[in-house]
């Protein structure tokens, strides 16, 4: 490794992506090679500076962009509008079916609960009303009933007439 300088490896890929094996090999080499030691230090610092520069640029783009909030809000509104129109499309395609089903359910509910209860209410009403048809008939029959005295007098009067 003494004659195999590490500059090719250093320049071939980003310093941060070097594997542990490659780093160990390079550290072993730089311990005995002054020029490669300097190259290793420089590559390390260069990688650090470039990363720092990228981080700063990213931070600046977030902090100093006056249109950032506008863009975020516009994206949010667009997303919300997409959701609303999707619901509207769903309602347009299934609205008639849903309305029909609701109307049918309501009609069935009326038939199941309201109609039977009206029948059961009519029965006691007829019994309780004093001038119902039944009471009139009963009253009439009561009025036509002949008393015992009338029956006896009718029998005996016939007998008397026969004598």
């Amino acid at each position, binding site marked *: 490794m003494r004659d195999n300088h590490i*500059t090719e490896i*250093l*320049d*071939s890929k*980003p*310093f*941060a992506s070097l594997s542990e094996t490659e780093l160990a090999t390079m*550290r072993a080499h*730089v311990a005995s090679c*002054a020029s490669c*030691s*300097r*190259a*290793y*230090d*420089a*590559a*390390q*610092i*260069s*990688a*650090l*500076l*470039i*990363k*720092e*520069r*990228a981080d*700063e*640029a990213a931070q600046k783009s977030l902090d100093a962009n006056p249109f950032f909030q506008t863009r975020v809000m516009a994206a949010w509104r667009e997303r919300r509008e997409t959701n609303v129109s999707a619901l509207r499309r769903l309602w347009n395609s299934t609205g008639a079916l849903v309305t029909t089903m609701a109307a049918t359910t309501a009609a069935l509910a009326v038939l199941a609960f309201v109609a039977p209860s009206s029948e059961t209410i009519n029965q006691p009403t007829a019994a309780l009303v004093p001038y119902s048809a039944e009471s009139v008939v009963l009253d009439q029959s009561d009025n036509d009933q002949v008393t015992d005295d009338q029956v006896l007098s009718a029998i005996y009067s016939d007998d008397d007439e026969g004598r």
Partner: protein
Amino acid sequence: MEGWLTRIATNTCLNLIRTASRRPELVTAELSEDETDWLEKKASGGAGSHHSDVEDRVVAADLAARLLAGLSPEDRLALTMIDGEQASVSDVAEMTGWSESKVKVRAFRARKKARQALEKLLGRKREASGTDFSL
């Protein structure tokens, strides 16, 4: 559509950078005292640690800008995207319209140039101070 727009934007930016005047290579005489201190600190073993001090970050960003200014726009773009933003070679190729081989060559060349510029600085500093900065 998105790739097409990205490519147009990339080429426009490259043209703008290309027409701008190139800054000279980073030399020791241009370094401020803070930048020299920062370099010495990192070269003496602190390079692996990510500095948190705000002042340190400002110095590093300035130093990085000057280091990258010595590269051609194409090389700078390849290095910043791949080493700084962790973009893949294929991503950069797609954005720029370059072949993957060209991206790799540009990144390799940029990495080498940046390393050599810093190496010169460190060498001069070591010669000037007589200090051994080896890790």
